[in-house]
């Protein structure tokens, strides 16, 4: 494969992996704290709509981002109330949130913009523009390094860089700070946290809200960076792929990055059947490529490639008094 084609595919991989990564990290915070979240998809979708709508209305991508995070946070709060305060079934709450977002975004979009459930196209400052990193132009003629820097590393929107930075940040937070220790503990054995004098409820709410913020970023990225506006169902199953990546990564940040890049790469390859055919020598079925992340996840879950052990207290409400 020539370098340029490879770079372009990797470039596209990064773009497509970013929303997965943000949602995956979002899920990581929540599930590490013991709150399962299959509502990543819904939160992302809600954030995509509100960021698109507000960015269009105000002309500012940043305000859009805030609105997207806000919308995602509202759904997170619903999930928190259902699964933490009222000790409801976390899976069912997640399902409900996905439907809520799928329905509400269209209903509101239709009544707001009357464009069949989409927002108008975003232009100018209403979108996140790619950032050219320093010296990208200067080094672009240097073989390999320069090209890689210019084509692959430089030229993404700020959210992409935020997402990538979040990986080491999450790692440090999780394994090197007080907060991370408590977060991991509450997902393994909430009673240990409780008897250590820390509020389980507060800790779990914080985790769920962080999850909301990150899903908000993911959604805003879809509508205001990757695309120029919201269209109905634009999350298109990314929340579930993120969930798959989270399992694939065994709930760890660096592995999450690799899983998301892998799934992003698969998506990017699915867009380049020509390249695949050229290098593999046969036509790869498009549906197979679409389904590959899901199949891989099932294989991982089945324990054929390492065992994915979820946080022990995950999915169970913390009940002291029966």
């Amino acid at each position, binding site marked *: 494969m020539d370098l340029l084609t490879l770079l372009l595919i990797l470039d596209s991989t990064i773009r497509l992996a970013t929303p997965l990564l943000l949602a995956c990290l979002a899920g990581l915070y929540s599930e590490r704290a013991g709150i399962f979240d299959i509502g990543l998809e819904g939160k992302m979708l809600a954030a995509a709509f509100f960021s698109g709508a507000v960015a269009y209305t105000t002309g500012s991508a940043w305000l859009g981002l805030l609105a997207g995070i806000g919308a995602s946070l509202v759904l997170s709060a619903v999930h928190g109330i259902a699964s933490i305060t009222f000790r409801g079934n976390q899976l069912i709450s997640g399902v409900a949130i996905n439907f809520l977002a799928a329905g509400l975004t269209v209903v509101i979009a239709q009544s707001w913009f009357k464009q069949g459930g989409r927002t108008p196209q975003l232009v100018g400052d209403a979108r996140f523009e790619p950032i050219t990193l320093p010296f990208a132009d200067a080094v672009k003629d240097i073989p390999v390094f320069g090209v890689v820097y210019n084509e692959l590393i430089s030229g993404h929107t700020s959210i992409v860089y935020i997402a990538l930075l979040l990986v080491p940040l999450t790692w440090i937070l999780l394994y090197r700070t007080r907060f991370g220790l408590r977060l991991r503990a509450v997902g393994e054995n909430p009673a240990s946290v409780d008897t250590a004098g820390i509020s389980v409820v507060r800790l779990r709410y914080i985790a769920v809200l962080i999850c909301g913020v990150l899903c908000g970023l993911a959604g805003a990225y879809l509508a205001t960076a990757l695309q120029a506006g919201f269209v109905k169902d634009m999350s298109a199953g990314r929340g579930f792929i993120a969930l798959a990546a989270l399992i694939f990564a065994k709930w760890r940040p660096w592995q999450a990055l690799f899983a998301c890049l892998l799934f992003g790469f698969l998506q990017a390859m699915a867009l380049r059947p020509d390249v695949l055919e050229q290098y593999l020598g046969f036509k790869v079925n498009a549906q197979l490529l679409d389904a590959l992340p899901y199949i891989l996840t*099932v294989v991982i879950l089945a324990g054929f490639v390492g065992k994915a052990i979820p946080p022990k207290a995950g999915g169970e409400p913390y009940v002291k008094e029966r």
Partner: protein
Amino acid sequence: MNELPRWAEIILVPLISLLLAAVLSALVILAIGENPISALQLMVQGALGSTYGWGYTLYYATNFIFTGLAVAIAFHARLFNIGGEGQATLGGLGVALVCVYIPWPHWSLALIGAMVGAAVLGAAWAAIPAFLQARRGSHIVITTIMFNFIAAALLNYLLIGLLKPKGSMEPATAKFAESTHLPSFQDMFSTADNVLFRGAPANVTFFVATLACILVWLLIWHTRLGYEIRSFGHSDSAAKYAGISPTKIIMITMMISGALAGLMAINNVMGEAERLILGSVEGAGFIGIAVALMGRSHPFGIFIAAILFGFLYQGGAELALWTSIPRELIVVIQALVILFTGALDNMVRMPLQKLFSLFKRTPVSEV
């Protein structure tokens, strides 16, 4: 916590949850500048005001009975089957294979054949996640979600390839032969001078679904298998002690669940579309979750809840047709029903428990 009386648990809690969902939905309608009262009138008129409306309401309800039963039976074994969508998709494939490739002499035989095809493929699609749960401990919720996507990709592959008649634009099979056409309510109930259920898709499958409710009820509460399923659902450690094999129960329950979800296809694929198109399940697998939660996993409750959701679907379609309220409103209502009856039921139950303990201060038998 004090337990609620049975009737309150079965009727009051779901009813209040439903009411909450309805109130919130009304607020949504208000917020988009429409009148909830007239919207409701329109829905009632459109869904229940004519045999035509009923024909659609019951058609949707038939789908939801099947998927609701599917989710419910899995709930009894404490398994959460989110894979109804994929299983019903595969059920559709089963129906299509049976109807396209086998020349049937009469619809009744075709129906039986299609039921077998739908049930077998639906069960097979549930069997893999079930096996992985039973033997490898993979979380069934995640695997069934993944299998929904895989089913969609598989069907997509087949419908643009093997199963698509040449020259067709759509990813769909050919129309099924005339001899496989199921009698619709119109065929069954119309007289020469009084056409009832004109053009509505409700068909004989509705009675199959009703029968399925009765059979599932018998299965759960009047058979040894049902006893074992419930035992396992309440306590897997106790089930093991009693000589009930978890693997067997997980496999059988999920396969029954998948078969029920798959059976939905005789309604929508064989009874209505009379060919298999992509995305024919249309979320019914997920609505089954709402229906099972509403119906408290009891076949009778599911029957009622399915009709309620049938009403919502048909009424919602009417809204979309005659007002500017988009059809997605029913998705919102569905979400709220799932939220309140499934995830926030303690929010409803806790105050009720307080209320009831005010009236009845005698504790449980102190012997």
